């Protein structure tokens, strides 16, 4: 059971994702440089957060052209689990693995804080250790996390349980005051039709230890291990 953490020039959460797999899951993991042409038989791909290509042009817009993305798309098309976190989510949107786009936060500012999320789909490789609608605390850190899609797409996401995480308050209410960035329907994370690609703005790799404020991200990493182990 081997994990790949893809490193683009400008990725900066690659290290945190690497440590999450290595220290928390205690599974083999390797960095794969964006110019590589192989995923080296990894069983799960993590697209980490950061500022690939300095966010120049548009977040994720240049990274999608990196050579390794062909392999990532192939891997996803064959049903392999792919998780994109923050900038990784943005790259998934740009590369067409997930629908929609990211706008600048409605405050027009970068926001770093811990938020509550409601896990609405617990049937995925990434969420099977969560109970349905479980509330978890996970940090966000982004300037472009204001998820947007046209009405038809949003309806499709909503009706098919493809909204995986939603921003909410401590009681689980997903209203506008609990929305940190203005994303449509408080969407924090979505999956593709097959359920093997997850994009989420919050950083589960930052929520693995009580020492750092929350350990709820454990549930997401443990879910992946559980899924791969059961396969």
């Amino acid at each position, binding site marked *: 059971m081997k994990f790949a953490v893809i490193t683009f*020039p*400008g990725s*900066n*959460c690659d*290290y*945190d994702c690497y*440590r999450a797999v290595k220290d928390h899951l205690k599974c083999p993991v390797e960095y794969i*440089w964006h110019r590589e042409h192989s995923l080296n038989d990894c069983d799960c791909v993590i697209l980490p*957060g*950061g*500022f690939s*290509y*300095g*966010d*120049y042009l548009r977040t994720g817009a240049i990274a999608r052209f990196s050579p390794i993305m062909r392999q990532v798309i192939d891997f996803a098309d064959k049903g392999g689990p792919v998780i994109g976190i923050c900038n990784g989510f943005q790259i998934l949107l740009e590369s067409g693995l997930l629908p929609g786009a990211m706008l600048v936060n409605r405050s027009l*500012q*970068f*926001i*770093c*804080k*811990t938020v*509550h999320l409601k896990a609405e789909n617990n049937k995925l490789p990434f969420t099977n250790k969560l109970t349905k609608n479980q509330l978890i*605390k996970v*940090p966000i*850190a982004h*300037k472009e996390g204001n998820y947007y899609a046209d009405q038809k797409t949003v309806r499709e996401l909503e009706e098919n349980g493809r909204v995986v995480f939603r921003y909410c308050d*401590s009681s689980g209410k997903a209203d506008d005051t609990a929305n940190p960035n203005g994303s449509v329907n408080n969407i924090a994370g979505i999956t593709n039709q097959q359920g093997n690609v997850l994009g989420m703005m919050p*950083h589960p*790799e*930052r929520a*693995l*230890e*009580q*020492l*750092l*404020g*929350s350990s709820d991200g454990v549930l997401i990493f443990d879910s992946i291990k559980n899924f791969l182990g059961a396969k």
Partner: protein
Amino acid sequence: MTKHQEPIVDIKLARSFGINQEEFDSIQRIMGRMPSYTELGIFSVLWSEHCSYKNSKPLLKLFPTRAPQVLQGPGENAGIVDIGDGLGIAMKVESHNHPSAIEPYQGAATGIGGILRDIFTMGARPIALMDPLYFGSLEDAHVRHLFSGVVSGIADYGNCVGIPTVGGSVVFDESYTTNPLVNVMCLGLVENKKIMRGFASGSGNLVIAVGATTGRDGIHGATFASEELSEESSAKRPSVQIGDPFTKKLLLEATLELIESGLAVGIQDMGAAGLTSSSIEMASRAGTGLEMDMSQVPLREKGMTPYEIMLSESQERMVVVAPKENYEQIKAIFDKWELHCSSIGVVTDDGHVRIKWGEEVFADIPVKALVDEAPVYERESQKPGYLDKLKQFIQNDIKEPKDHNRSLNIVLSAPTIASKRWVYQQYDHQVRTNTAVLPGSDAAVLRIRGTNKAIGITTDCNGRYCYLNPFNGGAIAVAEAARNLACSGAKPLGLTDCLNFGNPYKPEVFYQMKQAVEGLAEACKVLEVPVISGNVSLYNESLTHSVYPTPLIGMVGLIEDLSQITTQWFKEPGDVVFLAGDIKSQPDIGGSEYLKVVHGQVNGDAPAIDLSAEKKLHDFVRDAIKAGLVRSAHDCSEGGLAVALAECCFTPPLDPLLNKEGTGLVADLSDLPGRSDFKLFAEFQSRIVLSCKPSDIEKLEGLAKKQGVDIMKLGTVGGDRLVIKDLIDLPVAEARKTWEEAIPNIMK
């Protein structure tokens, strides 16, 4: 080959480069002839205040710089202290005041770029940034522009590079209106056996320029930083460099990979004065010479002259010195990271720096003359007249307000006291997943991965205190930093300082500087904290006045066990609250925030400070934390005891320790001496608010008695109100809202 025609050199040109007649004469004496245009440019930047410390050198000698834990003291790109386990912390603070005054976004951004290079050049991976900032009043629209520009410059740059900004401080005072202070501190983690230094050693070794290309941006930035801002300053906007955090991230990774490979013998960043200071400082340290061919430097603009190339401050560049045979391997590393790498010269053994374009020589200067023979001045010092006037302040002439709730609300909403969430929420403070105490407590705390240790980090300086009493103000800056660390459970290891002052040619300014540095040095000695690196920023002046003297202190300390990490917030109802330290002195409201924002006066003396009592207090608090007796510890400083107690009640949102029953307070200050409002708001030094479990009261009191520290019970944690008997009664939620929304409301 390009032919470069150089302008005529005379005193008029020299003056425009910031060189005075006396210095111009000694340059001619050293050279034995009239210097060339390029040579004059090189002298002007290396002899600028920014590079030569010519007006501060005699003062800097006062600092204690040695201690067993110091692995690298002042003089290198950054200082390093040992934290055990074969690891060290590299640390340095820098200022980017003048660039930020005229171009806040890029000025602040490139300030971060510069300090990061200082750290990773030493072989240390940057792990944290801290941003101490000083602005004018937020009532002023231009100040709001500077404030928001600086914060977003820091955010965009720091976030992109992926180094967490874990804390800092923001102070607002009219003295900084047109000349904000934008200081930035960086800490890095280094394996002690891999520490790299900036030496151009080994005759015949290559001098290699790596990173970004060189353009015309930032020419004479170091000179610009060494003069007063004026109405014409905005015309110097081209002296401000443009940052590229993406390239910086690549340069950081490539440089650390290079150091790891062991292929280089010396590395230095190109910061202020670019290639000039980096290459020449390296040669000076190694006692060697250099010969460099400007035609080999990768350029981003056509037709640049040797003068422009040597003085450019284009960002994201480094100089590497390495044996010839390693060049191809070094180039391969920089190729991988898509960065330039070009051999531009060789190390020589004749002690001269020779700048050429092909075969034509544009400069030939003895390195020793540039560095060791730079002028050093002991400036004239005169006690400013205002100091005696302030001493006449009689605090009892201040009318005591009836409503202390109102006063507390005013103080809590003063931007200097109010919550800085608006600022730090824009900074990624968690990337690299080590931040155990987030911004908002007395000190930021980072765990050191692979060990059971953590480090505490803080930055402090109250410029108003330094204005009222430069010596005490300087001493208090160090004492408060050490106190903040003590409250987090950390023992100080070392400090870095950024001496922000006005124009040293004004005798009153030099007096402030001298006194403040003496105060800092005295506190360093008593509190046993060595100075390991620093920076001097002078000429911080507006059209009418100098900024408050602001010797900013950044301090790092060690927490030996993760379980000892302590924060300022109350933890559980029923816990007992104590005040430790100075509980017997009469209160003095001189220089307090209360006096300023409630009574509209900056007056009196800075708070008194007894450094040996301070030391005892820190030792006691750390020992009490180690013994597991302390639930929370908070330093009393700006805003006084009332503000400190309120802040203890403001548990951060989503904190796992936040108790549903509330962490309000019922306290009684009747046993403290003095008038009610003075009791609440006087800014006593040497005071810490502690809370402990009821079952630990006796142990805590026993320990205090044993260590000769006074301690007094103030009250009990609980409820949802902040109650100070007969004086204050406010719902915590309301007080918190006042404190939390003050800055966002102004910045809307």
